[in-house]
């Protein structure tokens, strides 16, 4: 017989114990809820601030401008504008002067600076599209200069206050969607600046990154997990890969500068080099995620395939890899999203240059969205403030799009059977 008194579940001390256990559970649940609530609050704060500051960047003000080409000093013959070099011919003409003259005659001497580079660009497009405009007089809606735009959006600049009032009274000012922002590249004039060049640069850079990092990372993971012998060498490789994943990104930028630019003489500021540098940074993440995904494939599947005489290669590529693919893709998404938002290493390889033309390929000078945001945030001109926020919104949407695509792909592979 045991000498210990039998447990009495109905005892007061037992009930107290139970109550304390429930109290702890309640506390823990409350803490969890608080943590989630706090993160939601931060996220909402971030999104609301961004939207409030950035959405203005997607609209701009346009002013009506009656312009008489006959009276202007433009020496352009409509006949010469029907050839293939029309754009260059128009660029050679003093459109800026013509616009300034027309606005002064329409709205008085204070209106000399009413229009900026964006208006010139739009006028030149209009003339190329319809050279016959030059033979007469016409009225166009042109985007106003950045300073006037800010004033119209009630954000200050007393100098142009009167001009805006005047334009409003004459119903010569209207709000419109700023398509220029999505189709143009970087510019020194905020009214003419856009993200298209940076977006294209980002696309090329990420393309190079994925094309390099995904196959190399997956094959490295498969080799290390399925084929490599367990010894000191593979241990060393594993430690190195884990360390690489934690190395600060600027170090990879220095590496890219030293190896790709200085030793291999690849083009500076190019998405090719940017992509290669980011691939170095992304690959360890993919290797680690890939190895973990491969580890979770049940050994019984390998046994089953080996048991009917599949070779090691067949086991790996017919069974293990398809089952691990969703996990590998998740790792790739995380790695790529990190690369997508990376600025520091790209600064080192010269992608912070002012690039006014969108890149045509992976070896053209380009910049990427995060770097563009960094550059604009550094600008003195107040017109760039809302451009910066708007570019952040574009970057977030771009990331959302890419992640959505990756998640769609992952789910598709998961439902393969």
């Amino acid at each position, binding site marked *: 017989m045991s000498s210990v008194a039998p447990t009495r579940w109905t005892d007061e001390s037992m009930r107290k114990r139970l109550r304390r256990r429930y109290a702890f559970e309640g506390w823990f649940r409350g803490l969890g809820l608080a943590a989630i609530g706090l993160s939601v609050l931060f996220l909402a704060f971030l999104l609301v601030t961004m939207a409030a500051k950035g959405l203005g960047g997607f609209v701009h003000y346009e002013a009506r401008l009656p312009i008489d080409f006959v009276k202007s000093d433009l020496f352009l013959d409509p006949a010469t504008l029907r050839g293939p070099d029309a754009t260059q011919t128009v660029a050679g003409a003093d459109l800026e002067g013509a616009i300034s003259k027309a606005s002064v005659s329409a709205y008085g001497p204070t209106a000399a600076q009413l229009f900026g580079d964006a208006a010139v660009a739009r006028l030149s497009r209009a003339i190329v599209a319809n050279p016959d405009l030059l033979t007469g007089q016409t009225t166009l809606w042109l985007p106003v200069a950045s300073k006037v735009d800010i004033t119209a959006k009630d954000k200050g600049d007393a100098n142009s206050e009167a001009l805006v009032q005047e334009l409003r009274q004459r119903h010569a000012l209207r709000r419109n969607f700023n398509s220029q922002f999505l189709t143009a590249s970087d510019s020194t004039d905020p009214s003419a600046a856009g993200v298209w060049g940076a977006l294209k640069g980002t696309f090329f850079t990420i393309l190079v990154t994925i094309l390099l990092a995904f196959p190399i990372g997956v094959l490295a993971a498969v080799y290390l997990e399925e084929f490599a*012998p*367990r010894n000191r060498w593979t241990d060393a490789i594993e430690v190195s890969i884990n360390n690489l994943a934690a190395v600060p990104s600027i170090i990879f930028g220095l590496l890219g500068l030293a190896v790709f630019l200085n030793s291999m003489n690849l083009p500076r500021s190019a998405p090719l080099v940017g992509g290669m540098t980011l691939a170095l940074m992304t690959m360890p993440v993919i290797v680690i995620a890939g190895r973990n995904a491969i580890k979770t494939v*049940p050994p*019984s*599947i*390998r*046994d*089953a*395939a*080996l*048991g*009917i*005489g*599949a*070779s090691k290669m*067949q086991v790996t590529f*017919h*069974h293990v890899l398809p*089952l691990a693919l969703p996990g590998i893709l998740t790792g790739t998404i995380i790695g790529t999203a990190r690369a997508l938002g990376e600025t520091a290493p790209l600064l080192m390889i010269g992608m912070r240059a002012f690039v006014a033309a969108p890149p045509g390929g992976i070896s053209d000078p380009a910049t990427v969205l995060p770097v563009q945001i960094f550059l604009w945030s550094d600008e003195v001109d107040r017109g760039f403030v809302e451009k910066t926020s708007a570019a952040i919104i574009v970057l977030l949407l771009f990331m959302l799009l890419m992640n959505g695509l990756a998640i769609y792909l992952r789910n598709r592979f998961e439902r393969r*059977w």
Partner: protein
Amino acid sequence: MDMKQKMPITPTTPVPTPSVAIAAEAHARGPSTTEPPLPAESEAPSVAVEVPAATFPEGLDAGREAKMCADRVSVFYGEKQALKDVSIRIYDDRVTAFIGPSGCGKSTFLRCLNRMNDTIPSARVEGRIELDGEDITSPDMDVVQLRARVGMVFQKPNPFPKSIFENVAYGPRIHGLSSSKSELEGIVESSLKRAGLWDEVKDRLQESGTALSGGQQQRLCIARAIAVEPEVILMDEPCSALDPIATAKIEELIHELRGRYAIAIVTHNMQQAARVSQRTAFFHLGELVEYGKTSEIFTNPREQRTQDYITGRYG
């Protein structure tokens, strides 16, 4: 290479399908305890001689060509010896059962027969194992081909997470056993029929193999194993994860397959060993304690340890 007794499996070979009646009967009687009739054996003179442990009864199966022949096989996992000098023969038309308490090395031995132990880095096998007189432990042996000739069914049903059709077709496809799609379909159909699963799945071959019940999954695994026309089938506790009805079906299936394939089965269930096998090997602590006719092992064992185990004194 004694291949003449084996019929090659072709899609046109008539296949005995376990009838619905058998399934119904199995359902009615639950786990069977009646011993199935043994196949006719050449009456070997059974001379009762005192033999050391782990040897055969003198004269048993004398003069018969063994399909697989293990000679003093020892297995080490690192420093630990898991199997000590095991010698066993497996015959074409018989089911050989390996019984013994957990950790006695019977599964280890089974995995030696198609070199599945190769996948464990620390495992080391000594001794000689022959398949039709060819040493399969030699490094020159083509393991991929060996595993096609010596198929395996595992303890836990492990169908591929693919369609039922793909599960069975995978083996023939990687070994190039069919030259056309219709031929492949024929192999899949005959394998599923032989495994007694055809009637249950013929209308849903494109559904996932993992959606089947446990017993069906195990029969699918057997169909997958026989689709590559093996000569030997190794079964590692094929029924331990199944309910009695599914177990009865698998046991029926083993009867159907006997004669066409040499079968070795590891089991914890001594009734099962008695029901399905004609030869039984009793393992204990990595040693082969006794090997002989199933009927004799269970009624008149020569070793005290065997006696103790089958009467339930340990294990």
